[in-house]
């Protein structure tokens, strides 16, 4: 898949914009092989991948650096 945007804008996009652009591509190409396989695999781990509030989950390895 090629998603055309104006040349040189990638460098000007914020991480959030880049994230949304990737998500838009996933929505557009969900049924195809053109999205990153590893992301697709991750999507597959949630029953409702795009309707899930990720913010309410944490596990013990999620807190900072309390290991060293």
């Amino acid at each position, binding site marked *: *898949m*090629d*998603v*055309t*945007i*104006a*040349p*040189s*804008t*990638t460098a000007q996009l*914020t*991480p*959030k914009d*880049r*994230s*949304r*652009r*990737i*998500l838009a*591509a*996933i929505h557009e190409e969900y049924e195809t092989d*053109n*999205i*990153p*396989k*590893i*992301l697709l*695999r*991750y*999507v597959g781990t949630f029953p409702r*991948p*795009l309707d*899930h*509030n*990720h*913010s*309410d*989950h*944490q*596990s*013990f*390895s*999620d*807190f*900072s*650096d*309390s*290991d*060293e």
Partner: protein
Amino acid sequence: MMLAIIQATPFCPLACSYCYLPSRDNRAQMSEDVLTAVLTRIFECEELSDEVSIVWHAGEPLALPIDFYERAFATAEVINARYRKKFHHSLQTSAVLINDRWARLFKTHDVRVGVSLDGPQFIHDKHRKTRAGKGTHQHVMRGVDHLLAQEVPVHVIAVLTAFALEYPDEMFHFFVDSGVSRVAFNIDEIESANKSSSYSNNDVVPRYKAFIKRFLTLLSSTGVRLSVREFEGVFSSILYSGQDQKKCFTNIPLGNVSFDHLGNFTTFSPELLGQQYPKYDNFVMGNVLRDSLASVFTNETFIRVNTEIQAGVRMCRESCDYWDFCGGGHPSNKVAEHGTFAVTETLNCRMTCKTVVDTVLEFCEEQIRFNG
């Protein structure tokens, strides 16, 4: 889900070079009275969510006798019968003391075990040593074998020093071949008793980025089912972008609570408890023998710390392009590096948030082949 982190002993038999714990020589342990009070305070607290993860941490939690945990798990069930909260036990350990009996205990009680393991022996033994200065890798792997024999999933926290950045392939294949289910990469941070970091030199950033990119490429191309905390965090932010920004539970009041062996407790970053900061009353915000957890909201130390932390979070929200991937950063890093919570960027967020986000986004963009 809320984390209740119990430091039942500050003692650790090891002497890892980057350890931040200031009291790891102290062999004191939590009494039965304090333990009962800790568990009661956790379950009775209505301000906490209905699902609690009790994390046994420290120190080395397995430095305590196995019957301490047999009693603790039974006590938790008895106390919770009145409150009926969902909870489970987790534990973060060096694994050097795990034998068949420990592994069976974890299996019986469905304990989620995190192992501190930095990778193959030549990397791990460089920093994770006994007090006599010998490497611990062999002992750790024996513990891992006991866990796997009982079908206890092995989750790893690996401290990634600048030295390890040269070896992404070796790290990847080691974790896969060892039967590890999940890896979380920390860096050696400037924090509490650890006053230096191998990441202090700017030339480490491109090396860190190269490591992350290579590890992600290996994970993607091999199709191996190894879960990596750093990648999942960014994938999650991508997939739910626009719906809700990521929360950072270490800067939310009662997002987690940490208890020391005397029953003192604090909220925010677990690393704060046990640190000597007279300016912040050593971060002690109450004691379970006299205070409920909800009482922190009227505690003077909490109010002072929380005011500063939330000022720092606001500054992050207003100034940082990575806010949606982070949620304001870990207070323990801010205060360790800057002496105050009312700041934004830290070494930890430059590496483990900003660099990781940039790398994963770049990887996805290359896969999707955007023009521009």
